[in-house]
Structure formats: C-alpha cells, structure tokens
C-alpha cells in the first residue's frame, strides 16, 4: 500500500525537486561515468560523501525512511564485495578492492534514490519533451502507463488472494510457488493489456493521436531551465573532475578492465 502510493504521487516540495529534471539527469550521468571508469577507493568514497550530503535536500532526513529506500542497495553492495572477495583474479583476499567495488555500487545507485525521492514523473516528462525534444507521444504515453502502476499493485494483491479462494496454494513447495506466481503474473498481464487498450482509446478521444499528425502539442506547465540548474550541473561536473584528478594525482586511479 505505502509502496504503491509513492510511485506516482507528487513528491513533497523539496529543494532538490526544484532542480530541473534534465539538469539532474546530466549530473547523474557525470557521476555514473566517473564512478564506473575506475576501481579505486578514493573516487567512490568522495562521490558517496557528496551524495549523502544531498540527502536532506531530497527530503530524506529520517534514518528509518532512508533505510527503507536503500536496504536492497546496501545488501547488493555487500553481495558485490563478498563475491569479488571469492572470485577475484588476484587470488588473495583483496579487502580494499572489494570495499572499493561495494562503494562504487552505492555511488552509482544513490543518485537514483535522490532523484526518485525528490522529483515528480510529470515534471520529468515535461522537461524531457521541452528541452531534449523527446517524443511527446512516447513520454506522455509512458506517463499514463506509469500512473497505472499503483492500480496494478492492487490488482496483483487481488489476483493472489483469488488463487487461494479457488483452492490453489503452494504450501511449502517452491516449484508450486513459482507456478502460482507465474499464473498470477499472467493474469496481471492480461488485465494490464486490457486496461492499456482502454486507456489508449480514451487518450485518443481527447486528441492524443492528433499530436502524431500536424498538430504541435503544447505544454500547460512548461519547463524552465534557470541559473540554479546550470550551477547544479557545473557543480556535479566540477566534483567529478576534481575527484578524478585527485585520484590520478595520488596514483590510486585504476581504469576498469586494466589489469
């Protein structure tokens, strides 16, 4: 329920949410490239520190809320560290290398947590179509589908209960559990496609297909790039450049896939 509610609801008005989505995306790309280019401890450590500093700006104050959003991430980071300890090419127990890889996973993933927590999907679609000329047909078609996500979650719950009502449960048998899951997923897919077809008809009835022809779609909300958006991108790029420079200068920088 709570998960469903947060998907398409408007996030609270937080500072990071006032940064234009395209500016946020550019910053995320810069950080992702910087983090992925190297395997050292310094680079991801600096990036993660910067990202943590931005948490309050995304409205993520409470440790509990933060943990709820990041526990799968932390788990997978731990898993990455563990696996690289086991399978490392160097043979020995490379603690530093494993820690670096785990931090790298967090550095790449946290910006997404910040983005999702702070930014309304509608503003993202507006920004992408206004500034990057992404097709309005695909952007708003996708938006309409994303709006259905919480409904599909409710349908999923009903479908699962309905299986039991029909006398089918898995007990402790994992194979039966997977089959049951598959059957429920199929029922959900049918429901989703039906709903999608009806939604498409309703959208066309309101002129959505006109935008595929001669009519230029307008945008009632608009999307404006302000100086703070430019500053935000500049800050992110500067952070990436200095971090990489420091890493190179200290001799720690280690490009990925070079042995």
């Amino acid at each position, binding site marked *: 329920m709570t998960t469903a509610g947060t998907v398409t609801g408007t996030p609270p008005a937080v500072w990071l949410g006032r940064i234009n989505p395209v500016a946020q995306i550019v910053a995320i790309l810069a950080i992702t490239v910087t983090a992925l280019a190297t395997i050292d401890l310094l680079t991801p450590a600096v990036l993660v520190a910067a990202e943590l500093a931005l948490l309050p700006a995304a409205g993520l104050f409470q440790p509990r809320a933060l943990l709820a959003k990041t526990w799968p991430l932390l788990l997978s980071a731990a898993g990455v560290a563990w696996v690289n300890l086991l399978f490392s090419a160097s043979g020995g127990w490379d603690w530093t290398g494993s820690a670096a890889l785990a931090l790298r996973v967090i550095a790449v993933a946290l910006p997404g947590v910040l983005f999702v927590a702070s930014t309304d999907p*509608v503003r993202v679609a507006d920004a992408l179509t206004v500034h990057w000329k992404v097709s309005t047909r695909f952007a708003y078609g996708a938006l309409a589908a994303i*709006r259905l996500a*919480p409904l599909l979650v409710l349908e999923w719950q009903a479908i699962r209960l309905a299986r039991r009502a029909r006398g089918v449960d898995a007990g402790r048998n994992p194979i039966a559990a997977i089959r049951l899951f598959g059957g429920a997923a199929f029922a959900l897919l049918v429901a989703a496609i039906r709903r999608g077809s009806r939604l498409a008809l309703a959208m066309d*009835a309101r002129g959505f297909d006109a935008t595929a022809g001669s009519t230029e779609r307008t945008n009632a909300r608009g999307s404006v790039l302000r100086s703070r958006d430019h500053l935000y991108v500049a800050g992110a790029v500067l952070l990436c450049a200095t971090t990489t420079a420091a890493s190179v200068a200290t001799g720690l920088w280690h490009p990925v896939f070079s042995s």
Partner: protein
Amino acid sequence: MRVGAGPAAVDVVGFGFRYSGRPEWAVRDMDVRIEPGERILLTGASGSGKSTLLTAMAGLLGPDSGDARGAVRVDGRTAVQARDRIGILFQDPESQLVMSQAGDDVAFGLENRGVPAGEIWPRVRAALDAVGFGYPLDRSTHALSGGEKQRLVLAGAMVAEPGLLLLDEPTSQLDPDGAELVRAAVARILADRGTTLVLIDHEASPWLPLIDRVLEVQFGTTQAGVLELAPRWRPTVPVLPPRPSAQSRSNGTQGPLLPIGSTQGVLHSNGEDPLLRAAGAGYSYRADTAARPALALTDVELTAGQVTAITGPNGSGKSTLGLLLAGLKAPTVGRIVASPKLAGRLGDRPPHRWRARDLVHRIGTVFQNPEHQFLTGRVRDELSLGPLRAGAGDRAAHDRAEELLQRLGLHAYADANPFTLSGGQQRRLSVATSLATRPSVLVLDEPTFGQDPVTWAELVGLLAEARDAGTAVCLISHDARLVDGFADQELRLTSGVDHRQTAGFTGPGAAETPRSSDDQLGRNPTK
C-alpha cells in the same frame, strides 16, 4: 483553435461495422438523425452493438479497427474528422485518467490540440467549475473517489467545449453516490442545451428526466437498425426469483440442506447456529496503525440458507470484511469463528489458516473482477478445478462441470478460453466456479456490478438456488434492488467510525452476549 461552437447534429447513414479479424458484423444498417441539442438514450440488448455505434459516433473506429460501411457524420463532417467537436466518457474512470494531478489531467486534451499554454488554465478552471469539482488543481487523482474521478474525466472531455457529448455507461462502475455525482454534473453542463448528448446506461431510469428521445439499437438475424421508442418508455425491471416453499426447494445441488425459517429477515430465526461469524473483527494496515482502520470492529453472523448483505459507503471496509469472512485475510483484531459444522476436522483453527483445498469447499469467494479468478485456459477446466482441488475424483469433477455448464447455458463455450467470454458470461462463470465445490458459505463482492438486466436476473437466480440448497450467502453490494429484494439481513457499515459496528459488544469471545442489533444489524425494512 475553437472549431465551431454550439451543439452538433449527428447523421448515421446506412452504417455498419465489422472489427478486424471478426467474421460477423458488430452493427449494420444503422440510420438515425440526431438534431443539435437533443439528448438521446440509446438502449438495446447485450451484443446489439450500441457501444460500437457510440464509438463510431466518437470517431474512434479507424481503418485499422475494422471495415466500415455507410457513414457517421457529425455536423456534416465524418466523425473521424470531427473529433475535436466530440467528447466521450467511458465506464471505468481509472482507464481514462492520464495524469497524476487533477488540473494536469483536464489540461491534457487542450495540450493535445495545441491550445496555447496561456489559455489552458482559465479553461481548465472553468471546466472543473462546470462539473462541480470541488478540489484544487493539484489534487492527486489517486485520492479521489470513483464518482469524483468520473467527474474529473467529464471535465477533461468538456474542457474542449464539444458539440457532442457521448456517455458510454458512465455510472456502471460507480457506487450509488458516485453515480449521482456524475448524473448531477451531466445535468449541470447540459442545462444550456449547448451540447448534444447520446447516452448508454444499464441504469436508465434516473437519467430519464434528462432525456428527449429513447432509441433502441436492434441487431438480429431478421432485423437490424435503430428503432424509435415511445416517449413514455420505461426500462423493464428484472424480477426477483420467488422464495420456494420447503417442499419445492431445488435438489439440483447437494449442499448441506438445512431447514430455513419461514419468516424472513429474522436472524437465525429457527435457532440455527451461524456457520461463520465475525466476532469483533477489524483490520488495519500495518504500515499506518495510526490512521483510521480499514475495517472498524465488526460483528456479523452468516447462517445456512440465509442471505446477508453488507452495505455501506466506499472506504467503510466492506470488501475487507468480505476477505476476512472468506478466510483470505487475517483480522488484525478480533476473530473469525467457524462453527464445528463448517470447520469439521479443522477444529478451532481460524479460516485464514486453513489450507486452500480445505477452504475451497467450505467457503467460496467471488471477486469483483472475474478475470482475477481464472486459472485455466478452458471454461470446462475452470469448473472442474475446484472439485479436483477439494479432493473429488476425476469422474465426479467432470460430472459437476457438465452439470454446471448445462445449468449456465455455457455448454457452447465449454472449450472456450474464459478470458474471451463476454462480461456477463464471465460473471456467471466465476459464480459457478465458486459453487462447483458446493461451499457451505459463499461470499460475493459486488456480484451484480455493471451487469445488464438479463445477467442480473440470471445471477440472482443462481444465488437463490444456492441459498435454497442451504448455502449461507454473503453479498457485499451497493445494488439497492438486490439488497432490498434478496437479502434476509443487512449489515450497514459506516465509514470513518472509531466506535464498533455493533452495540453492546464487550470484547473478543463475548459474542454470545445477547445484544441489540437494531443500530447496525438493521433488518430489512421491506420484509
């Protein structure tokens, strides 16, 4: 960008339509003229093609939908060309809303038509005022009730100032309050006769004061076309099955045949113990314990051969109570107690902890959406699945399926995929799959929702048979005709209550305490 203004005329000339991949015509030989500003009710049996005709009037049947004959014109242009003059409202508001905020959703149609941003917001506000939508523009569309959502969709259609408004069963997915909201909004926007209206709705009566002409769409082997009905036309009301005397009671099913009290509307009148009861049962979502519970503490008793209706506004927890009684969810407070007769060897264990195969022949459940319940690819398999799961042999399960196929008139569809059946057939099938295991208790969530009068009568017939065979039937329903005419007792839930749903209740386990049932377990006044 306002193309024309004022009400539009509709001309249907020799129109026929056949959907792609279908051999048969969905409609043919349709001829009708609708004058500007007229308000038309379109009736017709299921499958008569009235919905197809309405979709064609909306200009939504393009060449890739199928083959067309003749023409449908709106103000002289083809309906497809005249789309910017037409607004349409479909059944399900959730499949029509696009944006997550109310204002954005109304603006959607104007954005698509290239209206300059500066003009959009004043028009959005005007449209929301016109339908009486009382929330700010940034109201989340998920936080609205069904009726409010449909009002919003109506605003989204009206914002483009259509000359022709088409309504395709706009209230069939709504509770009575929601339906009233929508009808009031439609009456409001049509008051100036600035828009022509064509309407389809199973629930025709409440619309009649608004309607100028009633047209019946006919489509059969001998005749097809549009028939003008008399000005004093009234929809036929389906007849409830009579309650049989003890001797004539159907023996077609072999559920636990129990004596039924001759006086209706009296709780377990002949001293019969309830098969299943909720004892101070309530439910709260774990995530928000501080918030209002999904279901306040509730007592209700389901007795063999009796029909219990659970009613109340949206959000009062009707469906939740149904899930608790059905053994599909565990109450977070209180208990669901099965009688020894119902539980049998399962003893004191609460229903939500029964294995599914033990549950299925004790308590049957029919969900709102039949498609959620389908598990197989064939109607026949669907009917034999329950008995098989409950431990019946192949032979017995097969016979039971055959019997139900005959009884439902679904024999021609025995090998069809359940998903391909019509809405009414699906509903009958989902009720039948639950009856297939002869459960002693049957819980149904809105069984008559959105059904046409024919299916309605068939469903009630099926339920009456189950009741007469001794099944305890529990209906969760908004359908006043069903509740008033068919239920023996009614439990009306109230929303937003912090107090218990039953007076005089002192705590779990004390349900035997005699209590006044007048305030909540109000008896059916018509009995």
